[in-house]
């Protein structure tokens, strides 16, 4: 019935492999980085069919001379930029301190966001304080930029009696309803479609608040990513869906998630959704892209997928040693630099900042972190958490059912 293909060539499976492994010299030569400022900024209600080039472009505002250039340059006062610099530095100081605390055995685990501080801080700045955030574990900068007390975050990490989550969650899995930050999950990606649901509810109600959520490059492969984009597209939900492409997912490079064949922003196209790709280490560009997406959402023009192109400069977590799978020097050679350094240089260029103010600020945030940590540690650390044992049974349900009452009794008796 059917013909048989003769002399067909043998099939081959392609297994993606990063360019450099430990022992190799880092090489970002293949990265094609467009210059800053060249990309036009469409109106935020522009039809999706006119936006399909954006996922292949890269929104950049800070040029090689640290000047802010082009149509995407956000309308941000220098004072606000200085605040942003401070929030990023506080985030980094916080990360350093908590990593040290973990090494000393005071916390079981920690995750740094080093090199990615602009993502969280500039995005928080571009959103309204009442907008709802559904982050992953690497956007602690959102909480810090929103002014959530770092002591509170530290108590969560130390899992102590000051932790309003009662020591239940793995360190870094914050929850801060008051700050408009949803409870983090240890399961990758699950919060992405939840954010869409929240935004759908806000729109159902004729509210004005939008939602934003974050996943990593690796997490885009999860089902939740697809569900989020589908529902956001179908119902035109007022949500910003962010993919933080920091090049790595633990030991897997972005190619294992599909990054070899397309950008992550390009996923938007198939859902008829706006997709932006932005230099994630450029505070101004991140702010600009986020603001554009927020305006689009607020105008009922639909969701935007933003790929934040950055680099995970630190280990995946305190359980990880990246020198086992990538060249040690790769982080330092990331062509898009360090977000704090770049914003600092821009501010200095604008004569709104100086190296000495930078040093003073560094001392200030370090001291703030030290003081907060002292405070937090006084409420307990892992292994000596001072959390009421009975609390184990609370909050499984709104009220304690009979079988859990019985189990609580048993624990009290048997220890």
């Amino acid at each position, binding site marked *: 019935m059917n013909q048989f293909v003769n002399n067909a060539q043998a099939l081959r499976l392609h297994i993606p492999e990063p360019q450099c492994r430990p022992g190799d010299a880092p090489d970002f030569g293949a990265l094609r980085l467009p210059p800053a400022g060249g990309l036009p900024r469409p109106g935020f209600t522009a039809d999706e069919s006119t936006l399909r080039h954006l996922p292949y472009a890269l929104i950049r505002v800070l040029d090689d001379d640290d000047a802010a250039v082009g149509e995407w340059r956000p309308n941000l006062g220098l004072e606000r930029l200085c605040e942003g610099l401070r929030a990023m530095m506080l985030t980094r100081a916080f990360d350093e301190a908590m990593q040290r605390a973990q090494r000393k055995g005071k916390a079981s685990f920690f995750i740094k966001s080093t090199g990615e501080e602009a993502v969280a801080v500039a995005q928080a700045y571009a959103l309204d304080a009442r907008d709802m955030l559904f982050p992953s574990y690497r956007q602690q900068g959102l909480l810090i930029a929103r002014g959530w007390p770092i002591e509170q975050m530290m108590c969560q990490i130390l899992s102590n009696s000051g932790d*309003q989550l009662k020591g239940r969650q793995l360190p870094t899995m914050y*929850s801060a309803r008051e700050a408009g930050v949803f409870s983090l999950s240890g399961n990758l990606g*699950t919060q992405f479609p*939840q954010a*869409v*649901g929240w935004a759908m509810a806000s729109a159902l109600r004729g509210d004005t608040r939008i939602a934003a959520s974050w996943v990593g490059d690796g997490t885009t492969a999860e089902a939740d990513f697809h*569900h989020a984009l589908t529902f956001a597209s179908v119902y035109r939900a007022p949500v910003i869906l962010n993919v933080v492409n920091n090049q790595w997912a633990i030991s897997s490079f972005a190619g294992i998630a599909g990054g070899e064949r397309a950008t992550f922003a390009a996923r938007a196209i198939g859902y008829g959704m706006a997709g932006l790709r932005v230099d994630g280490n450029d505070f101004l560009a991140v702010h600009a892209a986020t603001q554009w997406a927020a305006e689009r959402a607020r105008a009922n023009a639909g969701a935007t997928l933003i790929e934040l192109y950055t680099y995970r400069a630190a280990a995946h977590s305190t359980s990880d040693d990246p020198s086992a799978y990538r060249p040690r020097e790769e982080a330092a050679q990331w062509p898009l630099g360090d977000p704090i350094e770049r914003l600092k240089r821009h501010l200095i260029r604008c004569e709104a900042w100086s190296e000495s103010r930078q040093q003073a600020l560094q001392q200030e945030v370090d001291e703030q972190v030290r003081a907060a940590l002292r405070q937090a540690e006084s409420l307990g650390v892992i292994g000596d958490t001072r959390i009421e044992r009975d609390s184990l049974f609370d909050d499984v349900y709104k009220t304690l059912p009979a079988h859990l009452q019985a189990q609580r009794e048993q624990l009290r008796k048997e220890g």
Partner: protein
Amino acid sequence: MPVMNMIQAINSALDVMLERDDDVVVFGEDVGYFGGVFRATAGLQQKYGRMRVFDTPIAEGGIVATAIGMGAYGLRPVTEIQFADYIYPAFDQLVSEAARLRYRSGGEFWAPLTVRAPCGGGIYGGPTHSQSPESLFTHVCGLKTVIPSTPYDAKGLLIAAIEDDDPVIFFEPKRLYNGPFDGHHDRPVTPWSKHAASEVPDGHYAIPLGKAAVVRPGSEVTVLAYGTMVHVALAAVHESGVDAEVIDLRTLMPLDIDGIAASVARTGRCVIVHEATRTSGFGAELMAVVQERCFWNLQAPIERVTGWDVPYPHALEWDYFPGPDRVAAALKRAMETS
């Protein structure tokens, strides 16, 4: 009092809740304009508009995930999974997210959602339109699991589920939609109108979650059942002439342990019936609870009558189904030994 079949009672519960509470939204595959493949949401979009009752993409995981987000916003979502067999794509969102949200956030957020799903077989649905996966959900702390057996209970329990601030999985035995099926598939169908529990008030009422109902008092043996099997058990009891106490569990989690234990303590014998496959089915937990609480009262081994440990087969579904004869055989065994 209006007479309703189970679908009408469920529709009425949704209607009442959409009317009373602006936070209630109803969505799922085909539930909007069309009113659901089993017609449970018929007329509701027309009455409450597309913003309250709407169709979704075919993505059970996305349905539950967005419901969780809506719940976090402050709504009270009621979602339909078209068949319980298709709840697995939503398993992660239910187990890892909905069930644990209140706990992990120290009470800051919770997921007040209701997930309706038609379950059970006996309609020639084959392996993928017949399953009873309730036992899986009872193992997941943070979830509640409900299975009604009559129109009256279906409405009252569904209203309670919707009003509950914890996530509730609400299984609807689809073989009961149109009548109190007693397992005799070769006999004419009895409609609900002949059954007392088809008298269903139009307005609001709630049946508390966690309370079982004694549907037939008796002294010789306690039969624990839920959903379709309540009616099968009643038929078997009737036919075997045993003076059995038949308990309809109604809610599996939280379970009415005290009610069960009180009955078995009295009768000294216990037969458990469910349609789901046997191994690690909810019958196992019931057996465990009964022997923990009533060990010294038991005069015979607890029996379980269940579906076999095979996928629900299409052509041979009546050989899979634990019908009245198999229940009667178990009753007999339970009564013989002492």
